[in-house]
């Protein structure tokens, strides 16, 4: 059982580090899309590994933790996707000088179909 404790502690620590990095990302990154990237990817990973770690520390809780992990895994990308789309359609420009805006063409064609 000791070994589970160590694994769990490691995952909790890792999770907290990733959560922190995610927050640092949204603080330091230059524009909203980058922040979104950092904020959601890193914090999703962080939350998931922290929950996994708690599951290892307390093996009885594992089932519920996995349920939460699945929920986060499904819901977080959705929210970040919707947000990116919202930000784009609200007219926020990208950070780079010479933009490579691959979404623009899709977006234009989608406008016609009103997807």
């Amino acid at each position: 059982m000791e070994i589970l404790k160590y694994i769990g502690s490691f995952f909790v620590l890792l999770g907290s580090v990733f959560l922190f990095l995610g927050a640092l990302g949204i603080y330091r990154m230059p524009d909203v899309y980058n922040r979104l990237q950092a904020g959601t990817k890193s914090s999703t990973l962080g939350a998931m590994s922290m929950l996994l770690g708690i599951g290892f520390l307390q093996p009885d809780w594992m089932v519920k933790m996995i349920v939460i992990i699945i929920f986060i895994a499904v819901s977080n990308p959705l929210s970040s996707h919707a947000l990116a789309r919202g930000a784009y359609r609200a007219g926020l420009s990208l950070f780079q000088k010479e933009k490579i805006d691959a979404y623009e063409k899709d977006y234009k064609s989608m406008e016609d179909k009103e997807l």
Partner: protein
Amino acid sequence: MKRAFILLLLVVVGWVLADTFSQINFGESRMGDIKQQETVGAYYLNNTVEKLSVANVVTAIVVNYRGFDTLGEVTVLFLAASGLASILYRRKKRGEHDVMILKNSSQLLQTGAKLIFPAILVLGAYVFIHGHLTPGGGFQGGAIIASGFLLMFMAYKDYHVSHNVLTWVESIAGILFVSVGIWGLISGATFLENILGTGTLNDLVSGGIIPLIYIAVGFKVAAELTGVLETLLNFKTEK
């Protein structure tokens, strides 16, 4: 001048509150020993398990000891829904359709919503069915289910919940709640009295009428909040 007066008022209010709460020690038990008299909190903690077999004492208070308050609370929500509908009521012009959302959302969100929606419903049902065992209860479960419908409203342009269905669910759940109370009255006990057997602690079926009431409250709250959302989303002011 006016602003100075308001600031003065704020300072006075803040000072009075701070002064008063400095006399109430944080984190100190006030239950057992107030002037050597038992407080209601201590009574509930000491008696709930043996008398009601309900694990969650907060639920026991909300639904049984102070069940009348919960009836009032449900009524408040019902009134808020009715009042909101009456405030925002307008007759529809001929040929006017309900427009809730202007644009459809992306394919991804639609699929995701379809995927998550049942999970939210199950979670809501879980929260109000397990109200007497775990944190949560009818109101929270109902709010969660309403949030699920909110997700569907957001994802689909033409997602509607039938007004008829909402009315039926709401009314029947409300009638069920009051009838459970009146049932106690008819069977010779008092209003809302726990007349069923209470079962054993930490069983799913325990606590007599408490899960029953929480299920009714859950359905009622879910229907009411969904109705509120629909009313609000349907209302558009032209700018």
